[in-house]
């Protein structure tokens, strides 16, 4: 009961902080709209609009009101989930995002899993055998991958794997005739829900390359962070004590060294989740996939300010939520953080 109260107090504090951050972000977005060169009413009405049409739009959007009223109106609309209206699709931005987002989330989640699944074992082996062959080669690889522009890596892999060896499709989300009825909007999930296993494997086949390209840069960061943290932990006294108990290297690494090195990795992967959605812009464009990236890319290309800023607002919200989750995970991993954050009731 006490523990429950401590946890809910912690959660409400963190949620409050998250809301505060989002308010700051919203204000920034509002400022960006105001500071953008050009007349908002003109942009909303379109390039060909007459002066009368522009004035009509100005009145309809409330742009003739004082700035402070516009700001409050903007915040009020945000609270109702209104991110503005796209001037290209003429749809509410939120409705547009709902269509494209599942596909992006699917890409980002798979890329994140791939990132962790490669970087964590590699980091463990490299640190345990510091200076060995694996350590040296993986560090060189990490430096090369980390310094390589994602679009270039994408093009090279498309050429080698997609065009020369033909092991994966070059672009797109699924093959012709493979699509399943849209339920969630994420092709892999939709295929599973429809029981369309051929379609499921087809979508996976399509997502491997873009997810790998997206994961590559981030995996090098996780690898280096984990390796450095592990090298410190492996030198610590309690690792020797664990070895003195007769633990195998595997047990020592998985049960003791890894949990004690996880804190910086968790923090980093939280930040990465946000950056990945940003990088998805590039990857989705190069691989001709649907998603928030392609949506934002088009919005920028067509000067669709409300679509861009709505998307920024949306990505910011996702980043804040991911960081909230990371905070909670850190609490679960480390009893000392638990004690500091929850007070004595938490134990």
């Amino acid at each position: 009961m006490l523990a429950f109260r401590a946890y809910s107090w912690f959660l409400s504090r963190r949620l409050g902080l998250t809301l505060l951050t989002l308010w700051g972000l919203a204000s920034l977005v509002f400022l960006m709209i105001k500071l953008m060169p050009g007349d908002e009413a003109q942009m909303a009405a379109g390039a060909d609009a007459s002066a009368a049409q522009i004035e009509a739009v100005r009145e309809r959007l409330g742009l003739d009101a004082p700035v402070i009223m516009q700001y409050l109106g903007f915040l009020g609309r945000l609270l109702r989930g209104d991110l503005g209206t796209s001037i290209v699709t003429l749809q509410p931005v939120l409705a547009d995002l709902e269509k494209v987002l599942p596909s992006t989330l699917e890409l980002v989640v798979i890329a994140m899993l791939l990132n962790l699944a490669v970087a964590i074992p590699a980091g463990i082996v490299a640190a345990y055998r510091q200076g060995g062959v694996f350590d040296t080669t993986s560090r060189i690889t990490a430096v090369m991958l980390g310094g390589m522009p994602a679009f270039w890596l994408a093009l090279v892999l498309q050429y080698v794997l997609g065009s020369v060896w033909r092991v994966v499709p070059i672009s797109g989300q699924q093959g012709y005739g493979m699509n399943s009825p849209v339920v969630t909007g994420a092709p892999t999930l939709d295929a599973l829900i429809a029981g369309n296993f051929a379609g499921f494997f087809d979508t996976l086949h399509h997502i491997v390359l873009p997810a790998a390209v997206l994961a590559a840069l981030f995996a090098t960061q996780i690898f280096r962070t984990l390796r450095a943290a592990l090298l410190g932990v492996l030198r610590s006294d309690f690792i020797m004590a664990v070895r003195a108990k007769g633990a195998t290297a595997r047990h020592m690494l998985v049960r003791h060294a890894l949990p004690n090195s996880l804190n910086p990795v968790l923090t980093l992967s939280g930040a990465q989740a946000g950056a990945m959605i940003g990088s998805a812009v590039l990857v989705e464009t190069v691989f001709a996939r649907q998603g928030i990236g392609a949506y934002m890319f088009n919005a920028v290309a067509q000067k669709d300010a409300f679509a861009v800023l709505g998307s920024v607002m949306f990505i910011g919200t996702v980043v804040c939520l991911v960081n909230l989750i990371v905070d909670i995970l850190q609490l679960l991993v480390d009893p000392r953080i638990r004690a500091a954050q929850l007070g004595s009731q938490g134990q």
Partner: protein
Amino acid sequence: MRIVHPMPDESTATPVRAPLVTVDRLTVDMPLGRSGSSVRIVDGVDFTIGVGERVALVGESGSGKSLTARALMRLDRLAKLSGRVDFDGIDLLKLSDRDMGKLRGSSIAMVFQDPMSFLDPLMTIGDQVAETLRIRGIGKAEARKRALAVLDELGVDRAAERLDAYPHEFSGGMRQRVVLAMALVGEPRLLIADEPTTALDVRVQDQVLDLLDDVSTRRGLAVLFITHDLGVVAGFAERVMVMYSGRIVEDGDVASVFAKPNHPYTQGLIKAVPRIDQDLNTLYAIPGAPPPPLARPSGCPFHPRCDQRFDRCGKDLPALLPVGLSRVACHLLDGKGA
């Protein structure tokens, strides 16, 4: 702290014991960075520890005493070991890593200097004590029961309630009991105690020493006690080995070594122990400092600091030879052997 200076008499004569550990010409080399070269920290050490015997290994920081102890368990992954370490008839240095792992914790266990840094901060006390058993495939409930029994035996208050507490919730003395429980739960035959009292305050030091004394007597446990504190040695050990610059310079039963130290270094160490009846202004210290392992002087490594040195000391390395019931490595005693 108990500073006792026992006098030799018939009752303290060392009983003859079957050897449990026999160390023969053990050397430990540590690599120097990534250069590929290495430095010899322990330079040809031999000694035995009998079944149930309590032996103290004394020396200044850097004398190689901790690395000698760790070499018995092959704990330093970077150290290169040579020589022989026989444990109950098995040469530990020839075992595979896997087989060595099986002996750690079950036949030979270790307690460490600083109980805070030697406990995993993320794991509960109960899990850490039970881990020694869990590694060997003993079931969760059984391991927990035995962990609780050992913690009770070692006087951890309300042990049953505190199995699920974390190290940061324990006091220094209680943590040292936990570390000791971690070592004892596997029922080892040899316990290596690497300065287990150094990081504790004086009152707690005494409690931990008493505890170690009780437990080793009750279990017939052989103990290799590493310390730089001669006061602790006198109260606890039966035999004392003095290390200097990677070698054993004197080895004898505690009573005779304290009554009549043979090696000038041992004499200096005993003279340097502060006594309650002594004027603080006359505290004795051996002049100079131990040589770094890369720049050991020729001949006897102690000769630059020795107040009894003569010509030969700078030329020949003295061997560890029997003198009475002890062994001493000093040219002064050549020809006085038994």
